[in-house]
């Protein structure tokens, strides 16, 4: 199986949960074990849109209890005999091999997944900045041998790219350092924010320069943050920005 595999380096491993929250998209080939009409295949796939139940397969790293996953969309792109090219957008942790097996069961003939390529993992897609292992090795050699860091800078993306799909709050310079020490995010320290924040949401706390300061859990909605004058708006969970870059104001 090939495709988009975002890898967080050192401090960036803290934000992998933000990438997982962003869902996945795959393109693959299903191999039917019998002949089925195109229209029946399309209809069977459609039945798997929305919330589905899955028991993780034997070879999996999680506890094997039935759990629900959301399929945002799934469609048939093309069909040639018993080969079906499909596309699926889904929540992280959806087992595509299992999904395809289940579509085969619904069709009554059985099916298995022959090919799979991930075309998106959260904010990362195969259309932008996708690099091969060879590119990384070459970029590193270019630095080591020529002393030129420009290529390596291109193949490595800033940690901020990992939170691109999260709702955000932007905090004032005076509020940054306390958050770096683990303090929760109080309403008066917030300058800007995105709409659509609900209590319990994972939110990226940003500086006004666009640096990722921390990941936090919302205690208030966007509207409440706009209207409140004091109080804790978000509870800090993971601090990413190092201490000492912003002034201590306490």
């Amino acid at each position, binding site marked *: 199986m090939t495709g988009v595999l*975002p890898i967080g380096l050192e401090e960036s491993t803290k934000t992998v949960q933000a*990438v997982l929250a962003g869902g996945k998209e795959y393109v693959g080939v299903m191999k039917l074990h019998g002949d089925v009409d195109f229209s029946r295949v399309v209809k069977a796939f459609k039945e798997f849109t929305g919330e589905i139940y899955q028991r993780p397969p034997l070879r999996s790293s999680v506890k094997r209890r039935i759990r629900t996953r959301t399929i945002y969309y799934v469609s048939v792109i093309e069909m040639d005999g018993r080969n079906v090219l499909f596309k699926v957008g889904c929540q992280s942790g959806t087992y595509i091999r299992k999904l395809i097996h289940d579509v085969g069961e619904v069709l009554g003939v059985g099916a298995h997944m022959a090919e799979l390529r991930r075309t998106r993992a959260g904010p990362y897609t195969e259309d932008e900045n996708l690099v091969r292992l060879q590119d990384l090795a070459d970029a590193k050699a270019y630095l080591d041998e020529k002393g030129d860091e420009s290529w390596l800078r291109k193949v490595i993306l800033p940690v901020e*790219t990992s939170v691109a799909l999260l709702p955000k709050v932007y905090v*004032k310079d005076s509020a940054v350092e306390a958050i770096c020490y683990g303090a929760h995010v109080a309403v008066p320290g917030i300058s800007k924010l995105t709409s659509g924040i609900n209590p319990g949401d994972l939110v990226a706390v940003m500086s006004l320069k666009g640096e990722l300061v921390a990941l936090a859990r919302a205690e208030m909605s966007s509207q409440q943050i706009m209207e409140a004058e004091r109080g804790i708006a978000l509870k800090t969970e993971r601090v990413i920005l190092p201490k000492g870059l912003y002034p201590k104001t306490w």
Partner: protein
Amino acid sequence: MTYKKVAPPWEVERRLLVREEAETSDKYGIPPDKRPLKDHIRFGYVNLDKPAGPSSHEVTAWVKKILGVSHAGHGGTLETPPGVGETPL
């Protein structure tokens, strides 16, 4: 069959709301694209095109080795089918 359509996270649109205008001083912090190379790597992500064959775990270990970093973590295992380039369980 009835189902509720849920928009994928990448199609959610968000507006920017201003609670209180504020300026940021050049004296503090570093914009993400201006970090020294060492920090650019420590606070970096690689959008890797995973090759077929090796496991996600193996590929992540290679990235660590190539870049000489101490930790790396990937955003979701891309399974390797049984019998492809890995030791059978």
